[in-house]
């Protein structure tokens, strides 16, 4: 318990006081590497902050403020990755007027690294999404949408691997079933494949073939479905996965008090997080790596 508090204090020190050098390595001879994952989901064209009379999120959100939060973290952290779990489009007149151009341009300014596609990203049709892609200086990944017979063919890859601090971070995307949710005339010939089965193939590829140190899933499946517990969701995925370390979720606009820890098929921990919607929150997950020797995974400490 005390160690937990101590780590918490240290982390607060690093971010608030900007003492970037004071990482775990400064009081432990072990060489520690730190990867900082920042994430949003379901931002829904919410570019301006909510007004002060908003019943639920007064004065919250706003891209210009989110940019300030991210910049502050980038000042103290060396290895930052910034992700979005889909539904970037739709929700304010910015989308009706400009079709997503401003959303993509601002995300590019904030240096987003990667995003996956939500159902609302099809709202101007697959052609409407494609037309905005030149404004996005970051990539999109989706492993279970097959875009082969669409205009997005080759533009959306199943996964992307980042190299930070000598570590390999494999990130793949998963999207929700479109039939019954999105008009066929919008998604056209996009084929939806079972996300759980696809995830099991991709995580194996990322871990065993690509030798990734960290496997992350950007999911727009939704957190969980109480009425349909078998429906593919982040919780179902976490329990049926083997190598995923972190699931960054979206779709259900789930506001969690803190990230959720699930057990995977081998009984190991998987972190599932989702930060509500509209850019009201920014999620942050820090992974500390130890390369001094082969520690067993049971030594993993999760501080949330």
């Amino acid at each position: 318990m005390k160690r937990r508090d101590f780590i918490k204090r240290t982390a607060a020190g690093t971010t608030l006081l900007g003492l970037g050098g004071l990482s775990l390595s400064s009081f432990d001879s072990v060489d520690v590497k730190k990867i900082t994952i920042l994430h949003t989901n379901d931002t829904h064209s919410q570019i301006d902050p909510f007004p002060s009379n908003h019943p639920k999120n007064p004065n919250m959100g706003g891209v210009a403020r989110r940019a300030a939060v991210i910049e502050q973290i980038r000042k103290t952290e060396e290895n930052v990755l910034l992700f979005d779990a889909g539904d970037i489009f739709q929700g304010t007149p910015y989308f009706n007027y400009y079709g997503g151009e401003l959303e993509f341009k601002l995300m590019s300014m904030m240096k987003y690294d990667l995003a996956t596609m939500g159902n609302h990203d099809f709202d101007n049709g697959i052609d409407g999404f494609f037309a905005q892609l030149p404004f996005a200086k970051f990539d999109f990944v989706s492993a279970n949408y097959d875009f082969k017979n669409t205009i997005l063919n080759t533009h959306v890859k199943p996964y992307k691997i980042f190299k930070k601090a000598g570590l390999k971070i494999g990130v793949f995307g998963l999207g929700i079933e479109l039939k019954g949710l999105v008009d066929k005339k919008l998604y056209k010939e996009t084929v939806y494949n079972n996300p759980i089965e696809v995830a099991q193939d991709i995580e194996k590829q990322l871990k065993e073939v690509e030798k990734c140190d960290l496997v992350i899933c950007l999911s727009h499946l939704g957190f969980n479905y109480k009425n349909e517990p078998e429906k593919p969701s982040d919780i179902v995925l976490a329990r049926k996965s083997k190598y995923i370390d972190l699931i960054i979720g979206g779709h259900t606009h789930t506001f969690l008090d803190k990230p959720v820890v699930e057990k995977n098929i081998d009984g190991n921990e998987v972190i599932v997080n989702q930060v509500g919607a509209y850019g009201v929150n920014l999620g942050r997950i820090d992974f500390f790596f130890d390369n001094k020797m082969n520690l067993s995974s049971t030594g993993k400490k999760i501080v949330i």
Partner: protein
Amino acid sequence: MRLAIFETRLNLSRFDWHDKCNCKNKNRILQMKHFGLILTLLAFSFSSVAQQDVVTVIEGKQINVNDKYTAKAEYEAFITPYKQKIDKDLNQVLAFNPETLDKTKGEFQSNVGDFLARIVLEYSNPVFNKRENKNIDICILNHGGIRAMIPQGDVSARAAFEMMPFENYAVVLELKGEQIVDFVNYFIKEKKPHPIQGLTFTITADKKAKDIKVKGEPIDLTKTYYVVTNDYLANGGDNMGFFTKSTQTYNLEYLLRNILIDYMKDVDTLKLVNEVKVTQEK
């Protein structure tokens, strides 16, 4: 064997940290440290595996983006030209909203759902009647189609854009009573306050539908009813498959959002009617 050694070593590093904040049992910890050193060396001699990076600590938190953070001026400057054009079009106050319209209030009906279903029927019917010389009986919309709340106070067209951002048109479907019953069963199964108007029913204690009435009359399974909805649902969206069984479809080419804007222009204060449409037996 090796696993056990690593475990011990990790526990020791925990003691090391402990030591920094708590000086009790210092002797014991020092001894443990010594012991740890030996074990660590042992571990090294055993280990012929290549060094590998392993996650040891994960920290997770959520940062609320609020006015404690100063918005970055370069972003605001970038947004301004986009915003000005929208503000010019949408900021004019059109009406007054007497209470916050929120789709999450109420189990089977919400104030905003009741409001929207009523005005969609009210504003679609003259268009349909003029074209087809028939009248709309029912309005059915989807809970998920309401995307934002409208706070109490002055409202502008912006509120309509935020509440109904989709480019969805009012569509009238010719359906049999049978499909209306399918909808009621779907409604009960989904447990969501999908907006309805012109339709009332009771949910029994064992979750069955009874007393289904259209405009106050008991439903007739073989009779034709005219239902106004949006084109998304008419095409089977939200898994409302019964809508695709319509024998005729009339697209009124009237955006639902424009219905809301036109209504706001026509009134001074949004009118909210309390009407029990869904009764639940305990």
